[in-house]
């Protein structure tokens, strides 16, 4: 079992809330991601057994949503918005700066497994562009200075 007892319990609890067991797929994937940082075939199989639905249904939903990482990634997933408003306000150079600071290129993970950097479509926070999301938090109106502070802060917490 890749899923912890705690995750299994949480998934079961969520599954009990819906009239159709199938509705529990997304919460289950979210719980799995929270524990493991990603989901894969083994996890699909485990989830399908827990909520008693065919495995293919779990795989379909998981791959449909880009928000579920499909491979292990760093402790912090940095998603920089590269869509129009952010782009106009310098998303590109921000990504460049992050790449330089972290010593990796977009799509990669730092050797200490702390940060994974990717760019994504609009995160719906155009008014505070440029912005990025790290794990579940938004960081807005970004400047290089702010990026330095944020990375510093996360490193110290890790």
């Amino acid at each position, binding site marked *: 079992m890749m899923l912890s007892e705690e995750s299994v319990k949480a998934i079961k609890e969520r599954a009990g809330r819906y009239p159709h067991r199938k509705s529990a797929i997304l919460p289950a994937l979210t719980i799995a991601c929270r524990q493991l940082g990603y989901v894969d075939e083994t996890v699909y199989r485990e989830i399908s057994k827990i909520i008693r639905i065919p495995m*293919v249904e779990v795989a379909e939903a998981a791959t449909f949503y880009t928000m579920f990482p499909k491979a292990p990634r760093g402790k912090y997933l940095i998603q920089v918005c590269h869509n129009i408003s952010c782009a106009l306000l310098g998303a590109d150079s921000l990504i460049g700066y992050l790449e330089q600071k972290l010593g990796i290129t977009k799509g990669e993970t730092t050797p200490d497994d702390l940060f994974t950097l990717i760019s994504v479509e609009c995160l719906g926070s155009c008014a505070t562009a440029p912005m990025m999301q790290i794990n579940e938090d938004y960081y807005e109106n970004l400047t290089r200075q702010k990026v330095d502070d944020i990375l510093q802060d996360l490193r110290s917490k890790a």
Partner: protein
Amino acid sequence: MQGKVGVFVSIGIVMAEQVKKEQAVSGVPMVTATIDGREVTVPKGTTVLEAAREMGIHIPTFCWHPKLKSVGACRMCYVEIERMPKLQVSCATEVMEGMVIQTASEQVLQGRKAVIEFILLNHPLDCPTCDKGGECDLQNHTFAHAVDDSRYSFKKARYTDGTDGTTFDDKRLGPEIVLNRNRCILCYKCVRANKEAFGEYDLGVYERGNIAEINSAPGHEVDNPFSGNLVEICPVGALTNSDWRYKIRVWLTQTTSSICNMTSSGSNILFYKEKNHNKIYRVTSRMNDSIDDGWLPDVSRYGYQIATTEERLKTPLIKKDGKQVEATWDEAMTVIHNRFTEIAEKKGKVCLGGLASPYLDNDSLHSFNKLFRTVFKSNNIDFRSDYRMLPEGADSPYEMLVDQPFTIADIDDSDLIISFGSDLIREHPNEYLRMRKAYNFKRAKVVSINPYAVKSADIAELEVIHSIGRAETVLNGICLAAMEMGLVNNQDLTGKIAPATTAEAASDAGVTEDDLKEVARAISSAKKISFICGEMVSRSIARDTIASALWNLYLLFGFKDKGQMAILPRYANSRGAGSLGLLPSPSDGLRNTLSGLWGCFPESDPNNTDAMLALMRKEEISGFFIIGANPLMLYPDRQFVTDGLERLDFLVACDLFETDTTELADVVLPLSSWAEYDGDYVNLEGKVQHARQAIKPLYQSKPAYEIITMVAEKFGAPLFESIEACRKEVDELLSMTHSTKFPSQFLEVKPCYEDAEEEYPTPLLICDDPHHCGHRTEKSQSLSNFVSEAYIEMSPEKAEKLAVKDGESVRVESPVGKIVVPVRISDCIDNNVVLIPRNFASTQVTSLLMRKRRLDRVKITKVDE
């Protein structure tokens, strides 16, 4: 390309045909609209597409399928509706009162053209090397809309997995199916049919937007027993199968309408043969709503390869000095005539017997019957070679239930469907799909009462898994529950059945009292029931006890007014064989008609398969004629059959290929398959269907009818003036009004249990693999691509106890035999039962069985390498 979003948006808008049908009768409001200037009135809920089709107006589609819920994914079916600002998808738009619809306006054509341009963005346009060429919806719609230009000048996106970057992104999804994702237009039909219609989950849609793709379920193959349909319904060449790939272009073939020879419902099929050549290339469905709904189980689709296999018997063979050598038909007939005559003279009494296959057509069966009764004066004749210890007499509770009327299409609008002693997916795949359909479209309640969890768990509201060999006790328990709860008034049953209380019945049968009560409640509250019984009843020597318990249930709940209950016949023409009187002692009515037609009917003792085998052992039957049957492989006591057949003076066996049985024969005759001659077959409903000849008999083979006629002529007793004369007799027999019989009062049912034996603790069930039927299908290359050898199916718990893994071999022993087979672990099987398919000659599973047993029990041990 259209993303997956479309799927979610429009589910639920659509009215399925069943619902529509129901409404038309139940007086649901009708709505009137105008389509292309013509008025049409349809029941509320009909889609614009369906209404147009009914008027004969063709609207092009990709993702719509008449038997699936619409999803509106492809947008090809655009129409213009007045007062609606944009084009609408007709497959997912209901007709509303007063709608004015244009299906071919300038705007519509422009819209469709744009859809095609869009679909073609990344399409490889590799039609010259695509198997679908010539019958491709995309090709046809593009042609019809004259889309000959694209504004897209970039490099097309390509899947090139495992290949060299050409369009041949061939990915094998399963034993038969190959996927080319570049050609896929994401109509989702394959995945929808698979899940919705077949309840199979080995195929899915992954990712989204322009990287969305079809693929098998992670870690699985697409190998479900309906998978051939996916290839047939794919509108493009994205899904193809090994059967047909790169073998021939479709325009070089011609089709013949026929029916399949593998299921007892008789799926309607089309043969594709090469023009001017005597070769079949494939089989597709010929949608018949009252039988198959356009879905073919793989056995029906790929079963034709039993005709085209190289392994066919090519000439007659005659045994000389212990070896079968090639001979001419003339020589073979002479030997048959001389030996049969000799034997008859020597014994001086009736000592010939015959066994025909229920796969044969009416003419063949009827002529076989006439040959035996009028020329050989024998009542030693049967068509049932795989049921042990059959009783005789047309009025037994069992025979009466076999004879009950049953209508396949009535399953559709049953609100309660019970499968009892029947693993439908293996025995009656068409009816299995019907049951799923009733569940999908009408939320019919599905109940399974079986000794293991048959495949239907995903839709079954209630699964009553009882101890094996206790079927009648479950039925008694249901009756008792109904009486105890006051669901029925009639109490006459009390005292006729044992045990006397629901609680006792539940504990005897290994089920809970609640289960019994719930089934009783379901039956008593249902309006229309389809109660389907199958092989686990027919094959049991307790068949009459179980049938009596079924009759009690029938009478107690008044089934006569609320549904159908029958033991479904198993083979392509089982029902025909019964109706034509191919039994040792046909009913009085049949017997009278037959003797009227023939001017005589023998008085000799009637003996069925079982009795005939016993007489062979006593050397009282010394000459035997087998046509199409293979008792050695199928009769549930191999030793008994071997003993019998080996003691014969003379055995004639006809089949398509060499079998265990033909090996013992003194004369072997090559039989033509059903594809090689015209024939009529009676399906499980009693419907006579015509199978047309697709090709001429292969090699030197002959249709059964011809062989039988030749034998009769050799005996100087021609059977019919012509085949028409034979058909006239058949018609007369089949048109005899068939009064179905019922017992007039409750029947005694005293359960007959067999004690467990310590040494052989595991009950064994013999079944058909879902990809096979009887002894012939292992010769079909495609079907054996799925499964080509026997296995023992067991639950994960059982496997763990034996410390065996999937694929490892075990030794299976019974008091009379021993075989070694690989293990297949399955979630479906539980309750300690194990299954072994009987379809593979290399594993002589019937050698484990004993004819006088109710339960077959075995001991299983791991084989140490």
